[in-house]
């Protein structure tokens, strides 16, 4: 359905076309979106807990977590509100390296990421391992600001960005795929931008 009089638009540059998922536009800035106030988490109060169901597997404080191997990851990111940002440079700890440090193999196929503000989001284990995802500690070489999820946020760049939970404080293995905060409020259970899985009834 062509909209009368709509023709110009903010078209992506031609060389970037293949990098922009359907329904997205290219954003140069870094918009901030979140469901509540921005928590100010001090690194001395910070911790990250790996859990299997209710049972803690291992807990790290800020210094212990920062001693894990740091990996650089520069990726395009895609927000469900329709902006895409190219080449965002992060550094952090791969989920693979967290599991290795804890000395565990994933005990289930699903996880729920937890944040200091009570936010949760579900991500299958297959989308977190094999170098696909990290707990990011730095953006553009500097500590991540509170607005963008610092001290630490999950980074799962191949899914819509609500999956990359801000103010992360834990990852919990779950037996089933448990919907998180936005997944319980109408958003897609998986969230693949290339299949445009924005809302729960998208295929």
């Amino acid at each position, binding site marked *: 359905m062509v909209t009368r009089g709509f023709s*110009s638009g903010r078209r992506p540059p031609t060389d970037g076309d293949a990098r922009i998922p359907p329904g997205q536009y290219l954003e140069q800035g870094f*918009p901030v979106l*979140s469901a509540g106030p921005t928590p100010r988490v001090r690194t001395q109060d910070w911790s990250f807990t790996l859990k299997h169901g209710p049972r803690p597997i291992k807990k790290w404080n800020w210094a212990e977590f920062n001693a894990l191997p740091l990996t650089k990851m520069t990726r395009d990111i895609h927000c469900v509100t329709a902006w895409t940002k190219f080449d965002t440079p992060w550094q952090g700890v791969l989920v693979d390296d967290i599991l290795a440090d804890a000395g565990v193999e994933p005990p289930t196929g699903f996880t729920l990421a937890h944040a200091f*503000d009570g936010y949760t989001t579900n991500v299958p284990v297959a989308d977190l391992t094999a170098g696909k995802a990290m707990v990011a500690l730095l953006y553009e070489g500097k500590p991540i600001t509170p607005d963008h999820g610092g001290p630490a946020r999950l980074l799962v760049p191949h899914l819509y960005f609500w999956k990359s939970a801000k103010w992360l404080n834990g990852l919990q293995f779950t037996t089933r795929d448990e919907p998180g905060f936005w997944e319980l409020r109408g958003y897609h259970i998986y969230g693949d931008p290339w299949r445009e899985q924005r809302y729960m009834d998208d295929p």
Partner: protein
Amino acid sequence: MSDAAAVQSPWQTAGIVRIEKRTPRVTSFFLQPSRPFAYRAGQHVDVRLTAPDGYQARRSYSIASAPETHGVIELAIEKLDDGEVSPFFHEVAAVGDEFELRGPLGGHFVWPEDESGPLVLVGGGSGVVPLMSMLRHRAARNSAVPVVLVFSVRVWDEVIFRDELIALDERQDGFDLVLTLTREAARRPADYARRVDVAMMVQAMTRLPEPPGVAFVCGSNAFVSAAAQALIDAGLAAQKIRTERYGV
């Protein structure tokens, strides 16, 4: 839990049935969806425009109308100079035009009426739009839930829905309107002439007969960050504050 999963709907055609200029930069578009839908105060819709070559642009807009206005929905759209979709609405769109719409969407920034208690609403600029839906819903139901709205704009002439808000305030039925102008002198006794701050939030909450059950804050990211922090510093628990940010 207070947030039921949103009922979803596929894309549908909607036509513009009326256009009303609200302020120099904000215009209301009244839309008739081909398949009218029920929604809750605070929800939004996605709008999709398609160019002749197939290029599409989509944006989310909050609904300004009350759920009681069956059928036609009102979107109040601010013109963004570097925008992609809002210039179409402001410069091209006319009564009778059609485009694609999807909704209602969003299950968090909605008023959980049954158990929330008094409400604090804080809006910056066009961030007042979803809050207006809540206020209209309250008025349509003759609800007695105490509500205070703190609405921040630069100048008096940018107060979206000004006459209607003042009329609601004058009903003296438990709704208090507080306007704060950041670039002009205050005009009403309840009003301020500065940016939102802790003292203003403390005073706003004292207008309620009991502490608020929930606060809704909507506007630009800078506005929402400042207002939400001011509410926390004024003693409101962070878990009671729901925010919606334009993202910029």
